[in-house]
């Protein structure tokens, strides 16, 4: 019975990954497609059946992938200051006492600001499910990465994870988010290393919902 469930979850995760709008755009990037399917499977199986080794291994690979992604798609704007930004910084420095202004509106605070902007952009669910609707990010050529109707399952999955106190997964998510935040937010395919996490949680949500309904149906019958 358990092996059937595992096969079902395997197929479900593959289906959810392949049918996601983001995957269609990955067709030319075969390596990315393969990595994302494998990592999604690892996360989904590890989360659903509590396979600690698989979860640990996929978490480790996911962090490595995020690191690679962050380095290869590094957001150069984080470390460079455009003439317009420099002008704004200078203007703002004039509003305050010079010593305080140099700390408050320095280039390093601007870098921190931009990093936070990337971080919070990656935490925006609208970007993943509604193509950034209603505030489209035209520069990023936004498109929905996942089907909007899967959002409730993501929430169910997240609730289940928190209820079970899966600290390894939560820690991995935080690490991935922190690492991906250094990548360029205008990258057309979006923050790729986050997708296996989302797909894994959605798979868990869908799987547990189906199990719940089967049990409910059995009870009723």
């Amino acid at each position, binding site marked *: 019975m358990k092996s059937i469930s595992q096969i079902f979850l395997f197929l479900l995760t593959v289906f959810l990954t392949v049918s996601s709008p983001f995957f269609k755009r990955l067709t030319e990037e075969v390596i990315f497609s393969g990595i994302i399917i494998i990592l999604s499977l690892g996360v989904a199986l590890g989360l659903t059946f509590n396979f600690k080794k698989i979860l640990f291994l996929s978490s480790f690979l996911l962090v490595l992938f995020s690191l690679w992604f962050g380095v290869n798609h590094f957001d150069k704007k984080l470390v460079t200051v455009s003439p317009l930004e420099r002008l704004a910084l200078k203007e*703002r420095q004039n509003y305050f006492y010079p010593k305080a202004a140099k700390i408050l509106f320095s280039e390093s605070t601007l870098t921190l600001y931009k990093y936070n902007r990337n971080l*919070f952009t990656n935490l925006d669910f*609208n970007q993943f499910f509604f193509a950034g609707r209603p505030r489209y990010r035209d520069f990023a050529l936004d498109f929905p990465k996942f089907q909007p109707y899967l959002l409730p399952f993501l929430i169910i999955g997240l609730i289940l994870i*928190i209820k079970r106190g899966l600290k390894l997964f939560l820690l991995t998510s935080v690490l991935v988010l922190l690492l991906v935040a250094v990548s360029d937010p205008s990258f057309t395919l979006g923050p790729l290393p986050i997708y296996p996490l989302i797909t894994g949680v959605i798979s868990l949500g869908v799987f547990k919902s189906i199990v719940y309904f089967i049990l409910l149906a059995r009870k009723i019958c």
Partner: protein
Amino acid sequence: MLKILLIGLVLFLAVFLRIVNISETPPVYLDEASIGYDAYSLSIRSKDQYGEPWPVFFRSYANFQSPIYIYLTAVSVKILGLTPVSIRLVSILSGMVIILSTYFLIKILNPEFKFRFYTTLILTVSPWAVFFSRGAMEANLGLAIFTTSLYLIFKGLFKKRGLWLILGIILLALTNFGYHAYRLISFGTLFLLILIFYRQLSISLKKVTFLGIACFILILIPQILLLNTPGSLERFKSLEYFSTDFFQANGGELRSQFLGHYQFIILEFFGKYLDYLSLKSLFFDTDPTLVRGIPEMAVFYQWMCVPFIVGLYFLIRERVTKIRLFFILLGLISLIPAALTRDNLYELRVLPFLWTVSILISQGLTKLSQFKKFWPAIIGVVLIMSLIPLYTNYFHLLKYERNIDHSGFINDLFKYTKDRSDKKFIVSLSEPLSYGVALYIYQYDPREFEKSLNFNLENYYTDLTLKTEHNIKNLQIRQINWEVDTFEEVYLAGDEQTISRFKVEENGLEEIVIFRSPLDIRSVTIYKTNPKFKCLARLEKDKVFSSLNQRCQIILK
């Protein structure tokens, strides 16, 4: 004793943050000016600026504002005169009522002192709470009535006192007159309360609840009677995205798809709904309506993201009690009115949601301080990480970078013209509602203004047209008639869009004074006309034309 001292200090900080430099920061905005002028009119003659006695909605700029804020402001205007302080006093007091009522509400629901202390602290320093308490915002008053009603209702429920329960339900009904969004939220809240707590009520309290519901409906009768008038629906109609016209203009690819209009409505609703729940909106993005936000600052500080996530984590992990369920659902339903409007991220419409998020952040802080054990250090960190950005972004950046949005230089213009009452000014600004600021600054006699409007009061709630050209003492607010006005000795005031450089040179206008926004992005200039120059230019033009005429006649012959 220590507890009282701590709460006392936080309340002192709350008062300080809400009143410091209140008459200067921010400048009086168009909407505030209109609220102030309506209140001024009420305080003098018990009628609004149009001459309507005790309206259910105030016509204002034909946008039909909720009434309670203006009625209460009439009292402060009567006592203090028409000043920025008197216009904002109700909002400042509302901010304090929100903090106090929440403190007592949490005291009933949770005996832990730390939790209610943190809630008080978060509501004191949160950017949204400070910002909306320092401007004449009906929504802030609406939230104050709402939180007080919840306090009374829960006191009635827990102490089993029917009187508190009825008073709470009556106040809940009054929120409908406090701000438009509560016309949905109050019903939702009442429904939730009945759904979740009805079973635990004793028979006598059930009877009292029914009495309260009857009162709720009775109070709403004036609004129900006006429900079909354009005035009552105007706010929603001008903001909804259900119409075919809006879909055709904004539908994109969906316009050619099967059931595209329905898909569009669903996507708009959930997209907007989720946008308010997004961590980016809560902790990073500033309100896109620049006049409703602090530069580079969201409704909460970025650091609050951590206690928010911790609070959410424990909310999910711990047992869902009825009270928790109520607050979760309350937070979720309070987003519905905002998600039904076409504006993106309009935080003013979701204050009850921000209030519930503040409670969740406090919950997170309480949990964090249990781990650390040394909670005074957490208070110190909270204060430093909140007050420094508030000081830099609100009290400095806003003054410079949002001056235009807050009509700062329009205020300066009308103060200048008022001081020169012997001179005649024709003001033409690209902002058609600027006359509201003039009425406020001139404290123009509402009786005179009503006469000049010549408005038929029978159409008060149905006529949606707005007259934007007015004569106010030495001011004429209207478009400049270049063929007539420049032949008179007058002063013309306008911005770059209404008086171009070309017009200045063509008419020989003499620059008198410029009112610039601090960053010199926009300006209003006052010019003196030069009729002599204009007459000479006309004569020259006529000469050219007459010689041309003669030449043409020769050619034609």
